């Protein structure tokens, strides 16, 4: 008889086809996976199930109607969600600064003068120092000509250009002065205010304008004004050119937002202030014991954040019952945020906290899915077995495993763990935070516009295309190619996906992306794997677990299993990526378990 195991996950639906022989043995014939349709646990899941079954059966030359039994999992009734909130913000009103890295500024040094628009040169006062502001309508020859012509009468000490023509202008000047170019929002530059401009010596970064006292020296500020402009200096660190304007009414603030407190309603509950950072929050969560609910202080950022999470989870749940958040994972992060009042798209790194939360819902309506499936396919469908137990059974088919065995199932929404002892006792747990939180943190820290790009960065290794014939991988290895690489990739950081190269649009160095990606994965998965295993371990002692098998989508990752292996080696635990049935890798554990459990 033919029998199918179906595992409906948050992101993928997996199918495994087995045959029960006359000697009552299980022979595995085929397995497939396809993206889950709709939210896990809803009727719309049946579309994905049907197409996966069809594919798996056609692989062995059979039809879905040849199946005798379909077994679907009793999905874990947890839903996860993520949110992010910045805790500080920098506001610069009246456009007080420009600081950016145009690829080709010209000249070097610093200069102070009054901003003079190029169309107003005839009205300038002789002898007074001026910074010339030029919009892109003026071609470089004309600009150079004007500056050379008035050089004797009017003292031009620096130039701000809208077009990318700094070198072209400078090459035609008789007297060399610093020039900053590619300043996009020229129209916001007010004429008549005092400006300080600096271009760094090649190979260095600016020194005066990234130093509060440097700005104070150039713009003649008093102690109070110097204190106010400190955030400007901070956000100019590392730039090759910058402009700071002294606007009389201008004001700079670095606000610390009222972050608020998290209230834990638990066995050993309490309040934690978000300002204390993720470490303190997690400490409180770990000490709390059984958590009944978690909420944020009303009227604060964290309060709104929890409200949003609750709102979106209620939608998924589709019931009117009170949603209780039973676990959170908080992670400290830095987010580059566009500064209010910037002229060339400047950003400032703000402190932020990312939170993944998890709610226990009512039992998901798996029975309804089973009925619908039975109707559509005319094959007997049963809901069989709890997800964690099925996953453990499947994981046991990994060569080299034995009881007692722990599994860590790293999915998209939650990190789950289960422990089976020799006499069949099973302990399970679900922890908030997994793949989706990693994607969100990568997106935030790198300031990516698109979540999809963050997801790809999470999944694939990087390379830099150094010429049209070779690229340098993130591990330093160099690969040469026979045919020239598409010029669109030249000089770019790319992702090595199975469908070829994918270009990263944002101009971020490869090392920085690698560092952020690895840090984020460690912050989420190592923390969570330990948290989850501690909960299922006898007496909460990690050392009592001899074997850990990693399963689920995130176990397929190219570096997460290694990170966990290194971490667990410290606790003398054998830990590795599962290889279900010796052939499937970490996928298909639950579907395999569902087929296997039929025999019992």
């Amino acid at each position: 008889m033919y029998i199918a195991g179906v595992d409906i996950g948050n992101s993928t639906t997996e199918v495994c086809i087995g045959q029960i022989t006359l000697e009552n043995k299980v022979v595995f014939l085929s397995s497939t996976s396809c993206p889950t349709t709709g939210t896990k646990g809803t009727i719309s899941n049946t579309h994905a199930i049907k197409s996966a079954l069809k594919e798996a059966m056609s692989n062995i030359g059979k039809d879905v109607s040849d199946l005798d039994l379909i077994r679907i999992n009793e999905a874990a009734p947890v839903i996860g969600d993520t949110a992010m909130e910045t805790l500080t913000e920098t506001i610069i009103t009246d456009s007080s600064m420009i600081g950016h890295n145009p690829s080709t500024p010209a000249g070097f040094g610093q200069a102070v003068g009054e901003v003079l628009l190029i169309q107003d040169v005839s009205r300038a006062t002789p002898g007074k120092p001026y910074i010339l502001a030029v919009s892109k309508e003026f071609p470089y020859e004309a600009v150079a000509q004007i500056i050379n012509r008035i050089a004797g009468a009017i003292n031009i000490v620096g130039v701000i250009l809208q077009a990318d023509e700094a070198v072209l202008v400078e090459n035609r000047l008789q007297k060399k002065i610093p020039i900053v170019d590619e300043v996009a929002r020229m129209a916001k530059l007010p004429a008549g205010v005092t400006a300080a401009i600096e271009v760094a010596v090649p190979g260095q970064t600016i020194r005066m304008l990234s130093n509060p006292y440097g700005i104070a020296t150039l713009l003649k500020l008093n102690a109070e004004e110097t204190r106010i402009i400190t955030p400007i200096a901070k956000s100019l660190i590392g730039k090759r050119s910058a402009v700071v304007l002294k606007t009389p009414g201008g004001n700079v603030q670095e606000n610390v937002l009222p972050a608020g407190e998290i209230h834990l309603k638990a066995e050993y509950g309490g309040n934690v202030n978000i300002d204390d950072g993720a470490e303190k929050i997690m400490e409180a969560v770990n000490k709390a014991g059984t958590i009944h609910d978690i909420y944020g202080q009303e009227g604060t950022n964290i309060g709104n954040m929890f409200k949003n999470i609750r709102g979106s989870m209620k939608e998924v749940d589709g019931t009117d019952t009170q949603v209780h958040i039973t676990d959170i994972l908080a992670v400290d992060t830095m987010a580059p945020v566009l500064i209010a009042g910037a002229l060339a798209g400047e950003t400032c790194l703000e402190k932020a906290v990312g939170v993944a939360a998890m709610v226990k819902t009512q039992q998901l309506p798996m029975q309804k899915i089973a009925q619908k499936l039975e109707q559509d396919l005319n094959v007997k469908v049963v809901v069989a077995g709890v997800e964690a137990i099925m996953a453990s059974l499947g994981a046991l088919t990994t060569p080299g495993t034995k009881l007692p065995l722990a599994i860590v199932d790293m999915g998209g929404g939650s990190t789950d763990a289960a422990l089976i002892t020799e006499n069949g006792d099973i302990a399970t747990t679900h922890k908030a935070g997994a793949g989706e939180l990693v994607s969100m943190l990568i997106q935030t820290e790198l300031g990516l516009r698109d979540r999809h790009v963050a997801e790809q960065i999470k999944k694939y290794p990087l390379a830099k295309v150094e010429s049209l014939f070779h690229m340098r991988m993130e591990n330093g290895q160099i690969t040469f190619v026979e045919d020239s690489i598409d010029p669109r990739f030249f000089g770019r950081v790319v992702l090595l996906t199975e469908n070829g190269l994918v270009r990263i649009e944002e101009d971020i160095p490869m090392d920085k992306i690698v560092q952020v990606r690895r840090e984020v994965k460690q912050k989420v998965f190592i923390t969570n794997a330990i948290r989850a295993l501690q909960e299922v371990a006898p007496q909460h002692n990690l050392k009592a677990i001899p074997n850990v098998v990693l399963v689920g989508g995130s176990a397929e990752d190219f570096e997460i299993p290694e990170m966990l292996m290194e971490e667990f080696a410290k606790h003398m635990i054998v830990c590795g990526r599962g290889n279900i049935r010796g052939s499937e890798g970490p996928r298909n554990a639950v579907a395999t378990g569902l087929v296997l459990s039929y025999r019992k």
Partner: protein
Amino acid sequence: MIVSRPSIYIYVNHPDGDTLREVHSGIEEEGVFYEVIERGEDNVNRLAYDAANDSMLGSGIGILGNTVAFQIRGVEYGKNVEQYENPTKNQSRIIGANSARAIKKQSFK
């Protein structure tokens, strides 16, 4: 001893004035040297291919009338890295800048 400056070669045949001007402005803004050389060749692929192979830097541009092509040494003949018929000023500027950025190992604009 005759020493030539390492420069990008621009091989031209009756080039459009604006196109040529924008192309070398693009190279100059990136801070690389260039040389403009007149050739009696009516194939833009050949102009660009030869320019790239003759240039010490391995980067060349061919301009035939109002067609401009950018080529890098080692890339197959006829498979130009970038090419425009009747380019706008901005496109000419960018193709010039890219021929220089190729040498500097910076991403194209």
